C-alpha cells in the first residue's frame, strides 16, 4: 500500500494514459483511432528519447547535435534482430525487441562515446554534429546494414509474445510502448540518484573540482554517454515496432534537433520537463502541421518566446509557483491569470490570423486552397480580416502590457511573502 502512496503519480499517469485513447474510440465502428494511438506512441518513444538526451544535456551538461545517431542505430539493430527472429535464426519475445535496440544503442554509444567524450562543451557539440552528418550520409550509401533509401522493413507480428499478444493493432503496440516508457523513465529517474548520476552533475557544474575529488570526468562522460545510448536505443527499438520500418531519417539531424527542442521547451532542470516538451513538440509537428503550412514558423516563434521569457522551460514555469503554493496562496494568482488570459489569447489569435493570412495570400492561394475558419471561407484580399488581425495583435499587446504590470506586482508580493516565511532560499 505504501508503494501506491509513494508512486501514485506514476500510477495515475498510467491510468490516464491508458484511458485517454478511449476518448477517440470510434464506437460506431468499434475501433480505436489509429492516428491518436500512433501519435501517442510517437510521444512515448520521443519522450524516452528526450529523457535519454537529458541524461547528456541536463545531467552532464553535454550539448549533443547528433543524438539521433544512437536512436537510429539502435533502431537498425532492433530491425535486424526482428528479421532474424522472423527467419527463425534466433528466438526473442516481441516484448524484448526494444531491449535489443537498447543494447545496440549502448554498443554504439560506447564506441562513438569513446571518440566524442574526449571533449566537452562546444567541441563536444561540434563532434557530435560531424558524426551525425557522417552517419546519416553513410546510412544512404551503404546498403548492407542500412538498406539504402528504402531502409529496413520488419513485420512485428512474430508469434513470440510472452503474453500471447499478436501486436496486430496499434492499441497493443501502444500498451507495449507505454510499458517500456514507464520502465525506461523509472530507470532513468533512478539513475539520477546513483553515484554516477551525481558525479555527472558534478562534472557539469564544476568540472575542475570533480577532477580534484578524484573522478576522471572523461570516464564519467563516457559512462553517461553509453547509458544514454542504451535508452535512446530502447526508443529506437520501439520506433521500429510502431512503424515497422527504419530509414535513414532516424539518424538525421532533424531528429536530433527534436530531442534538443523537446528538452529545452520542457525544461532540462526537472526530470519530467523533457516529457512535457516532447508532448508539445510532437503535437506541434504532427498535429499543427496538419492544420497549417506555417507550423515551422510557429515552432520558431515558440522557441524564441521560450528562450526569452522562460529559460527554465515549461517545468521551470511550473516550479516557479511552488513557493507560492507552499505558503498556501496559489489561489490568489487565479484572478491575475484570468485577467491576463483574454489579452494573451487576443495576441495569439491576432498573430496566428496575420500569419495565416500572409501565408494564404502567397502560398495557399496558389495551391487553390481556401482560407476557412469553421466552414466560413474568408476572403484574404479584403481589408477587414487584416484589420481585425492587426487590431487584435496591437490592442492585445497593449492590454497585456497593462495586465502584466498588475500581475508582476501581485507576483512579487507573493514571492516576498514566501521569502519571509522561509520557503524560498
Amino acid at each position: 500500500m505504501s508503494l501506491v502512496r509513494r508512486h501514485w503519480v506514476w500510477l495515475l499517469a498510467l491510468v490516464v494514459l491508458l484511458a485517454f485513447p478511449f476518448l477517440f474510440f470510434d464506437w460506431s465502428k468499434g475501433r480505436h483511432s489509429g492516428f491518436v494511438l500512433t501519435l501517442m506512441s510517437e510521444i512515448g518513444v520521443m519522450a524516452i528519447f528526450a529523457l535519454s538526451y537529458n541524461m547528456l544535456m541536463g545531467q552532464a551538461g553535454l550539448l549533443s547535435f547528433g543524438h539521433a545517431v544512437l536512436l537510429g542505430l539502435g533502431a537498425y539493430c532492433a530491425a535486424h534482430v526482428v528479421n532474424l527472429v522472423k527467419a527463425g535464426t534466433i528466438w526473442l519475445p516481441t516484448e524484448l525487441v526494444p531491449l535489443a535496440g537498447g543494447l545496440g544503442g549502448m554498443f554504439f554509444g560506447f564506441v562513438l562515446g569513446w571518440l566524442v567524450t574526449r571533449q566537452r562543451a562546444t567541441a563536444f557539440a561540434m563532434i557530435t554534429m560531424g558524426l551525425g552528418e557522417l552517419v546519416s550520409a553513410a546510412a544512404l550509401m551503404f546498403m548492407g546494414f542500412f538498406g539504402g533509401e528504402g531502409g529496413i522493413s520488419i513485420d512485428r507480428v512474430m508469434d513470440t509474445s510472452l503474453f500471447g499478444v499478436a501486436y496486430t493493432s496499434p492499441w497493443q503496440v501502444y500498451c507495449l510502448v507505454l510499458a517500456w516508457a514507464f520502465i525506461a523513465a523509472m530507470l532513468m529517474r533512478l539513475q539520477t540518484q546513483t553515484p554516477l548520476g551525481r558525479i555527472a552533475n558534478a562534472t557539469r557544474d564544476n568540472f575542475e573540482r570533480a577532477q580534484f575529488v578524484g573522478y576522471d570526468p572523461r570516464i564519467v562522460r563516457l559512462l553517461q554517454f553509453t547509458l544514454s545510448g542504451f535508452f535512446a536505443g530502447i526508443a529506437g527499438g520501439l520506433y521500429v515496432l510502431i512503424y515497422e520500418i527504419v530509414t535513414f531519417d532516424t539518424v538525421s539531424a532533424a531528429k536530433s534537433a527534436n530531442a534538443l527542442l523537446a528538452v529545452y521547451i520542457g525544461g532540462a532542470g526537472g526530470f519530467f520537463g523533457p516529457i512535457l516538451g516532447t508532448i508539445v513538440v510532437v503535437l506541434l509537428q504532427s498535429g499543427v502541421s496538419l492544420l497549417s503550412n506555417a507550423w515551422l514558423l510557429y515552432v520558431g516563434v515558440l522557441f524564441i518566446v521560450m528562450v526569452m521569457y522562460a529559460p527554465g522551460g515549461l517545468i521551470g514555469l511550473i516550479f516557479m509557483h511552488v513557493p507560492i503554493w507552499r505558503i498556501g496562496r496559489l489561489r490568489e494568482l487565479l484572478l491575475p491569470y484570468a485577467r491576463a488570459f483574454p489579452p494573451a489569447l487576443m495576441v495569439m489569435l491576432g498573430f496566428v490570423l496575420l500569419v495565416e493570412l500572409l501565408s494564404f495570400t502567397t502560398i495557399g492561394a496558389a495551391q487553390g486552397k481556401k482560407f476557412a475558419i469553421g466552414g466560413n471561407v474568408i476572403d484574404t484580399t479584403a481589408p477587414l480580416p487584416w484589420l481585425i488581425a492587426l487590431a487584435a495583435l496591437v490592442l492585445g499587446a497593449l492590454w497585456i502590457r497593462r495586465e502584466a504590470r498588475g500581475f508582476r506586482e501581485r507576483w512579487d508580493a507573493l514571492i516576498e511573502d514566501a521569502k519571509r516565511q522561509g520557503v524560498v532560499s
Partner: protein
Amino acid sequence: MRIRIWISMLLGLLLAVGGGAPGWAQQTIKVAYTDPLSGPFAQVGDANLKQMQYIIDFINSKGGALGKKFELVPFDNKSQPSDALIALKSATDQNMPFIMQCSGSNIAAALIEGVNKHNDRNPDNRIIYLNCGAVAPELTNEQCSFWHFRFDLHAAMKAEVMVRALPKTTTKVYLINQDYLFGQSVQREVRNFLGKVRPDVQIVGDELIPLGKIKDFSPYITKIKASGAQALMTGNWGPDMNLLIKAGVDAGADLSYYTFYAHLAGGPTAIGAGGENRVFSVMPFSENVAPEIGNAEADAFIKGFRDKHKFEFTSAGFRTIFEYLQAAVNKAGAVDATKIAFAMEGMSRKDFLGFDTTMRKDDHQLIGEYFVGAFKKGVKYDAENTGLGWATAATILAKDIDQPNSCKMKRPKI
C-alpha cells in the same frame, strides 16, 4: 503539489482535445495526399498540390464517380516516413480509400509496407496506395503489392527512355548520380540499357556523389571535360541537378545534359538561358505536346490552369491517375478498396493526349507514353518565365517501354 499540477494539466488536455471526436459522413471520395508541404522541400508538395487540385476540380465537373465527388486531403509528411505512416493512420481512421504520394522512394517503401500490413490486419477498412512519382524499380518488382499502383515509370524504364533518346551522333557519355538507392539504380539501369540499345556508346566516366552535399560542381565539370564526354546523363534532382548544370553552363562545357528532373518546379529558373538546346529532360508529360500534336481539348485544359495559377502545369499527367480512379470506382460500383483495386488492375485507357496506357495487371505499373523534352526558345508554353520551354524531342510509346517484371503478386480473396 504534484497532484494539482497533474490533474489540472490532464484535465486541460482532455478538455482541449476531447471535444472533436471524428464523425465524418462519407459524402465525398477522399484521397489522402502526403508529401513534404513545409520545410526545405516544400516546393515539391506545393507544386503537386495545386496541380492535383485543378485536375480534381476538372474530374468532379465531369461527374466524379458514382455520383460522388473526389476530395483531396493533404497531409504534410516533412519527408519523413514516420510522418507519412501517421498520415496513413489518419487516412484509414477516416476510412479514406486512397492515399497518394509522389516524392521519395523511402517514404514509398514505408507506405507499401504500412498499407500491406494495415490491409491484412483490417480487412474491413482497406486502402489503396497510389504512387505518383516514387520510382525505385523494386517497388513494382521484389516489393510489389496488390495495394500499390504506380502511375509513373520506374527508374529502369526512365533510363531506357533516356538511352533511346540519345542522338546517334553521341558516342561518349558520362554518368553522374546521387549516392543512394535511387541514384544507384539509375546508374545501373542506364549502363544496362546503353549496353543493350546503344552498344556503340562508350561510358567515359561514372560517378556517384553524396546526396545534397556538394555546393560546387565545377570540379566534376573539369573532370567530365577531360574525359571527352559529349553528353552527361544524370538522375540527380533538386540542388544536385541545378548546380551541376549551372556549373557546366558557366564553364562553357560543350555538353548535352540528359536528366530526369530538369523540368520540375525550380529547374528551369536555376538553369537559365544557358541551358538552351543543351538540357533534355525525361518527362511523363510536357505542356507543349498538346499544341504540337494539335489536341485542342488538352490544350484548353492546360491553358485553363496556366491562366488560373500563373504557374507551369508540368504534372498535368496526373490527370491520367484521376481518370483511372474515376473509371475504376465506377467499374467497381462501390467505394471499396478491394473492389476498386481489382477493377483497376489490367485496365486500359486512352489518356487525355490520346495515347494508349495500361495499368499492368501483373505488377500494377502503369505503362504509358513518355516524352523527352529539349529546353528551347519559341515554344508555346515557356517554363517559369524564362522564355524557354520544353519542346518535345522524342516521344516513346508505351509498347517500347513495356519491360518485364519479377513481381509475384499476392491477391486477397474477395
